[in-house]
């Protein structure tokens, strides 16, 4: 938002595109999915710009859209993923054209699996902190929570992810 202006434009929202992308990356299984989700977030935000009452909260509002879009996507794509997992080789988690594909790293695949298996409440706190690097106050504003609740959820999420990765390593050895 430009100083003195009380409306927000798409250009104003696009300033936060990296933050939106990082949130999507935390929720998504791979880069391509994250980019698609980020685009969807901006399409939704553009459609809903008129509903944005207070331009000062544009960033929180945009990040909230990102979080909702990603959680919706995770919920609706689960049956499709289960079908793919059942009938297709699980090689779909690779990047389309990236030789430096992070999803190709088995450790990263384990991390993704651990994050995706978190309950939504813990997952969103984890992603907003570890991927989007938001402060507890910012996460609280985005999720409508007190900072103490954010910290509590974040602690549980970190413990859960660490335990899951530990278990996976033990299974490998």
């Amino acid at each position: 938002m430009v100083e003195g202006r009380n409306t927000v434009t798409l250009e104003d929202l696009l300033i936060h595109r990296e933050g939106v992308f990082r949130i999507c990356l935390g929720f998504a299984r791979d880069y391509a999915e994250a980019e698609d989700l980020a685009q969807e977030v901006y399409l939704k935000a553009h459609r809903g710009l008129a509903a944005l009452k207070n331009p000062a909260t544009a960033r929180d509002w945009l990040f909230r859209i990102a979080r909702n879009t990603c959680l919706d996507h995770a919920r609706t794509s689960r049956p499709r993923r289960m079908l793919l997992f059942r009938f297709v080789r699980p090689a779909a988690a690779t990047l389309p054209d990236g030789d430096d594909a992070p999803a190709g790293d088995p450790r990263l695949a384990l991390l993704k699996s651990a994050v995706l298996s978190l309950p939504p409440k813990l997952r969103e706190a984890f992603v907003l902190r570890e991927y989007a690097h938001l402060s507890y106050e910012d996460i609280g504003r985005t999720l409508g929570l007190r900072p103490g609740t954010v910290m509590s959820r974040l602690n549980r999420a970190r413990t859960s992810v660490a335990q899951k990765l530990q278990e996976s390593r033990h299974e490998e050895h």
Partner: protein
Amino acid sequence: MKNIKENPLPEDIARLVREEESAATARFRGRDFTGRVKRAMAAAADAAPVRASLRRVPRWMAASAGVLAAVAIVAYVAVPKRGADDGAAERARAGLVRLPGLDGLDLWAKVAALGPARLPIASDHFAAFLSGMKAVATTVTTVDLVPTEGKAPRLGFEKLMEILIRDRAVEKALSLASPKLKEG
């Protein structure tokens, strides 16, 4: 918040997250995301008039159209067509007549078995349908009555009066013998 001690992410996991994030972010920066979003918006704007016109259709109208379509499909399947294969219709009818209160549908089969009146709803078959119904009624009456053997004897006037008087007398006796009931 003061009582909660922060539990940091183990360093190896934090490093993994940072690696993923930095690689993906670098890649994201190298792409024209703004252009991509604007192209997607333009495409969405092109499709908007169609979506808007669909959105203008009231919900009750869409629901009514859906119900009508469902009724039409059911009617198409359930009403037997002249000269057509009755397999599906027969199966639907057999299922329907088993439902409580719908056993009257069995009349269809009787009508259909009697003659060409196979489509009772069609106006050009209405007369044929009526004749079929009459024939069914006759058949049903004949079946339901106790069959008589030979020709019934014609009653004379005296015999008829005798039956009537006897009938009235029995009725009177019964009404006198029975306790009086107050109505209401």
